[in-house]
């Protein structure tokens, strides 16, 4: 097969997740070479680029939207992405990051900064992103085109989904993955 003239632009983002979905992405192992032959990874925690490109064909999002920083990022990314993909249960359903939602922000901060410390620590101001009242799945704040449930989705699932998307098709994932898979 000859090299496509222009490769698709692929990006991955890491919001409020444990990085497990990115680990699973890396677990594609030698299949990463196959993906690399058809797409260029233009922005990702795995590559050294600070600003999100003007236009990206496919962006995979790991993690829920939990802070003002996450919200700002994902809105910007949505505007500059053709196909936005929620990768993993945190992005798709909120998952573990939303376990704080029934309690509210203050009790959660208090648990971390007052109750579970040997010496009281000052609350962060300015440097650490401010938590939103509730963590939310990505599609609760911007439109999402494709959902890949799983915690994390397997490397096989990610490989299949990315290959289908690169071929311009919508992946049919029902048999491959589910919430909690």
């Amino acid at each position, binding site marked *: 097969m000859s090299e496509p003239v222009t490769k698709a632009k692929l990006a991955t983002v890491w919001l409020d997740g444990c990085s497990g979905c990115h680990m699973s992405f890396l677990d594609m192992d030698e299949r990463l070479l196959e993906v690399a032959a058809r797409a260029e990874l233009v922005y990702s925690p795995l590559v050294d680029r600070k600003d999100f490109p003007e236009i990206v064909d496919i962006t995979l999002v790991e993690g829920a939207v939990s802070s003002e920083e996450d919200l700002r990022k994902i809105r910007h990314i949505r505007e500059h992405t053709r196909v936005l993909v*929620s990768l993993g*249960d945190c992005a*798709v*359903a*909120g*998952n*573990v990051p*939303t*376990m704080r*939602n*029934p*309690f509210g922000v203050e009790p959660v901060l208090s648990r971390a900064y007052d109750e579970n410390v040997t010496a009281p620590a000052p609350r962060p101001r300015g440097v650490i992103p401010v938590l939103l009242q*509730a963590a*939310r*799945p990505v*599609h*609760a704040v911007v439109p*999402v085109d494709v*959902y*890949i*449930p799983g*915690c994390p989705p397997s490397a096989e699932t990610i490989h299949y989904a990315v290959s289908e998307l690169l071929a311009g098709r919508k992946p049919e*994932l*029902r048999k491959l993955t*589910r*919430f*909690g898979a």
Partner: protein
Amino acid sequence: MAGRVLTCQIDGQDVSGLEESTILEVAREHHIRIPTLCHVPGLPEAGACRVCLVEVEGAARLLPACVTRIAEGMKVKTESERLLKYRRMTVEMLFAERNHICSVCVSNGHCDLQWLAQTLGVDHIRFPYRYPALPVDSSHARFVADHNRCVLCLRCVRVCGEIEGAHTWDVMGRGADCLVITDLAQPWGESASCTSCGKCVQVCPTGALSEKGKSAGEMAKQRRFLPYLTLMRGGNHV
């Protein structure tokens, strides 16, 4: 139980059943699949979940197959775009209503709700999640009740009342405030009526009722005892 035999049509197929049979019973006897959640073979029906909705010709509304009896000449459709739409919505609302975190749930991989979502192609929840603050009752020596995972199917209420005969479980509150309770909304561990038989735990379709000490994904339920016990009591066991 002798009764008249009625003939009707399900998905274009001619079928027959005893006159007191439900659409679900007749469909299952003829290997026609209708998804269900609150239905469990061997227990009286509750009609609580609405996952089993079917189209009946001439009826203005969709009808729950598990509590609708067949009638002579009835024409039933168990699959359509409209039905799929409603079944998906029902399942999505169940997820949005409480706090389902499958990845860390004791029932991950063994859960009827999770399985329904997968087979119906529910890959995200379109409704806003409610994130209610709900109790977890771990006062019982052997079992845990986690209301975050409860779908109010009332299987626990029915098995405890009808099969074990203890009637420890009941329902309290309406709408969003509805909860299953033990005795008079007392901690399960202090219940005077609970025999600790574990039947409610085994029939619960989700991670709401589990055995103590199970970690994520470890709570697989044993349900084969139920049709046997029901048969022994002379009941229906489809």
